[in-house]
Structure formats: C-alpha cells, structure tokens
C-alpha cells in the first residue's frame, strides 16, 4: 500500500468487511487514498476520520437503519473534506465485473436519466445493432483489493461461504490482492471441494490467517455483527461529536492494541462466543 492508492474493500456493509486489513492501513497512517466499497459502513467512517481518504466511491454509506444517517459521513462530505462519488449498486458491481473481464466498459440499462450519471462521469453509448441508448459503465481497476474470506489454503485459493458479495470480481480487477482468512485449510481440503473456490491462488499476492478478522462486523455462519458495539459507538458520537468520539475510538481500537488478538481482547471472549452462537442459530450446519 502506498499513499494515494485506490483501494477496494470486499464484503458489503457490515458483512465480511476486511477490518483487520483496514486497521493496519490506519496504523500505517496512509493518506490520500480513494476507498471504493459498494455499501460503506464503519470502516469508511474510520478512514474518513483518520484523514486516510480524500475520496470514497460507493452506492450508499451509513451503518444501518437503526443508527440513522451517518454523522461521520455528513461531517466530512458536507464540509468538502472528503468527496463522495456515488454510483448505483449495480453500476458499481459492473465496474468491477468489467475490470475483472479485462474490458474497458460494460453496456447496461441502469442509472440512465438520473442525476447520478453526471457524478462519476458515466457516458452513454448507442447500441450499434438497434440504436437504443445504453449506459457505458466504466471498468474500475483499483491498485489494491482488501478481502476477508471464509477459508483458504497456503496457495491463496479462497472459498467464501454464504452471500459472495462482489469479492471475486474485485480480486480480478485489482492490481494487488491482499486477503485475510477466518480459517487456513490444507491443499487437500480445497481440492476436495473445488466448486467452493471463488478466487484462485494466482490472483492473491498475500494471505494472512486472521480469525474474527471482520469483527465487530459479521462473517456468514461464523459470527454475528455486534450491534451493541455499533450502538455504543454511535451513542458516543451523538454525545461528544464526530471528531472527538471517533478520534478516541481510533486511539482505543486501532492504535493502542499491538495486534488484532489484543484488539479482540477489548471485546472479550464471552462477547465473541455470543456472536458465534447467534450465527450458528441463523445458519445451522455452517
């Protein structure tokens, strides 16, 4: 990672977010980044508040329904400190699909006629066969993709359980692919179920085993998102304001713990166990 890189984070909203990787970027105090993520959540807020990003490319940003419109996003975007470049969710996905296919754009029928067209500069195209107007969704080739997967082998062959989000396209689109995994399995285990592999090892530049690597966000069948933590975080922002509350949060959760395991100790084993139990109840047999 270099200052000024464009970075895409996998998962979606508070699902399978590569938070251990995001935390490391924040610890390295990178600046001038462009962060791309289809639905952006607390990771985007932390990167904004840390001064790591100057632009975010997204379809939607906030934590979720019960916590209202993101005050952090409002603070940084309304003041002009961070640019929020908005694409529709499908167009965002097609930007990575196009890049993953190695083509400069994909024709699509979405976003046409809306004011979103002008935001990211999407152009239209005349269908050479019928003459109809199509959206020409431009490929997005980020410098770095940060992904968190369910399991991988030491060659970087990755499997994802549950909803796949856009990770496979993002891995194909990015120049450098950094992956954390909940579980490291043997080569035999991958070969036993090759149908489950969504990212082949030759796309992956670095792989790190990091259980609970998305916490307090969720990983399908493994642990539920920690909504109490979101509530505490947003309540502190409500009480003390964006800059003070998030600066303290960064100090406590990003900079103080030396490792991700020390970070997890701030939550405690009982809390992590509750999150695991909730996931097992929702996805039996996962």
């Amino acid at each position, binding site marked *: 990672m270099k200052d000024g890189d464009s970075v895409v984070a996998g998962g979606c909203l508070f699902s399978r977010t590569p938070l251990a990787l995001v935390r490391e970027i924040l610890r390295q105090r990178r600046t001038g980044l462009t962060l791309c993520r289809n639905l952006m959540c607390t990771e985007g807020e932390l990167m904004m508040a840390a001064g790591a990003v100057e632009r975010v490319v997204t379809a939607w940003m906030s934590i979720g*329904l019960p916590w209202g419109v993101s005050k952090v996003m409002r603070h940084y975007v309304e003041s002009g400190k961070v640019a929020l470049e908005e694409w529709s969710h499908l167009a965002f996905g097609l930007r990575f699909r196009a890049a993953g296919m190695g083509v400069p754009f994909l024709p699509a029928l979405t976003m046409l006629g809306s004011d979103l067209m002008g935001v990211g500069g999407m152009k239209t195209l005349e269908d050479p066969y019928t003459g109809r107007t199509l959206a020409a969704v431009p490929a997005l080739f980020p410098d770095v993709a940060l992904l968190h997967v369910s399991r991988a082998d030491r060659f970087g062959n990755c499997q994802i359980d549950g909803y796949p989000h856009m990770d496979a396209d993002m891995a194909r689109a990015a120049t450098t692919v950094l992956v954390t995994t909940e579980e490291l399995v043997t080569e035999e285990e991958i070969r036993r179920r090759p149908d489950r592999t969504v990212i082949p090892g030759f796309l992956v530049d670095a792989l790190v085993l990091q259980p609970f690597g998305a916490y307090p966000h969720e990983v399908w069948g493994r642990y539920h998102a920690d909504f109490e933590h979101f509530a505490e975080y947003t309540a502190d922002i409500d009480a003390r304001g964006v800059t003070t509350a998030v600066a303290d949060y960064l100090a406590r959760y990003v900079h103080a713990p030396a490792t991700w395991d020390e970070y997890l100790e701030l939550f405690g084993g009982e809390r992590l166990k509750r999150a695991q139990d909730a996931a097992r109840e929702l996805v039996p047999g996962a």
Partner: protein
Amino acid sequence: MSTTPSELLAVMGSRELKDDTTVFAGVGVPLLAAALAQQRHAPKLTMVIEGGIIGPQIKPGRLPISTNEMRAAHRAQMLPGITDTFLFAQRGFLDYGFMGGAQIDQHGNINTSVVGGDYWKPKVRLPGTGGANDIASLCKEVIILTAHEKRRFVQKVDFVTSPAWLDGDGSRERAGLLFGGVSRVVTTLGILGFDPEHKRMRLDAVHPGVTVEQVRENTGFELLLASQVATTTPPTDDELTMLRALDPERRFLGGEGGNPSRVPPPKR
C-alpha cells in the same frame, strides 16, 4: 391498539403484490409488507433482496436491518451475489420493486443523495442510492411506500437519485429506460398513481378518515385527482395480527406516530 403509520403502509403495500410474482424489496417496511403478502395471499411470492439473496423466508422476530446479513438470507433459495441479483432485474425477471424514499417529486422521481448546495459539498448528505436507482430503473413496476409529508412531496427533487418518469411526457423512454417506472405511491394518507399521458402524480384513493383536502395540504405540488377518489379498506384484524407477529419487538412497526420511512425527511 390502533394502527400505526408503519402498519398502515405495510398492510396497504402488501395488498399491491400478486401471487406467483417476484419482488425486489428494501429492508424495513417494504420487506415487512412483502413478508405479510407472502404469508397471507401470495404464498408463491419470491422475495429478492439487494445483498444477493433470492427467496428468503423472513423469520418472525428476526427481521434484518440490512439487505446483506444472515437474517435477510433465512431459508433463502439462492445466494447469487449482488451484481448477478441486479442482473435478474435488468433481464426483466423482477415484477415489482418495493422501496421508500426521502424526497419524491410530482413525476415520482426520488432523491436519497443530496439536499441543497453543490453535489460535492451539499447542505445535507443522505446515504445515497444503494440499489434504489437500479430497482427504479429495472423492475417492471415500482411501488413506493412512504410517509406523506409536505417536505417529502416536492415539485422537483434536488437530485434525481432514482428515476421514475423523469420530466414526464416520454422522457423516461428517451433516456433509454424502455420499461418499468413507478406505478403506485402508497402513503400514510392514501394511494397515488400517475396520469397516463403526462405522468403527473394523481390521488387515486384516501385511507379511511383522510380527506382529499388533507392530502393536498401535505403535498408540495399540485396534485391531480382521479375522477372518483376511492377510499381504501382499513387494515383487517387478520392482517394486523399477522403483521405484528412478524415484528413482535416493533422495531419497524413503531409506536403511535412512529416514523415509517427508511430515511428521515431532509431538513434544509
């Protein structure tokens, strides 16, 4: 207890969905309305959720707050990924889009992006489109569920996040959107449609106890009236019982006067 605004919206919304169809539903009241329809009159309704989820069965008391979390995928039939889920709609497989909105104009266009100021430095930054633009562009029929307030129902939205009929008079088609469009706007006061020619919003029905004058007072543009403005049938005990069982903690159904919409109305 009496019916809350969110309950009214969910029941009226659920009645719009026919059996053996597909619906692209947003979380909150739209998803509740779809789940109610599925339990009541549309057992073969397939719900499709933005997080890449097809055919879930919502577990009572376990309503998702996001379109991509385990609760949204409960007993799903398929998890195709987000891009591919939207591509089902682009191919024409989604009968209904079901969504809310912060600001809506006389042609049904919705703004969930920015209010006031410049786009890059807005007065108020809202969360954004998410999949709303795609649902509005690509579903065969779009139904909006929203609180009916003057500050939401404006002559012209500050920013067209999700296109309905754009400026009316065929402008949607000219932009390249050859199918779809908003057919119904179900509100806390009544049900609205659009005149076929100019695609301007028209009051088709009021809920029991609501007057046409009240709807006009809460609308920020000149409202067309159907030749005969009907009165809707109030939610039945049966509908309310089923709906309340889906959300026993009342996280989305709210209390009396609870805010039924996903995004609060913009304040200037």
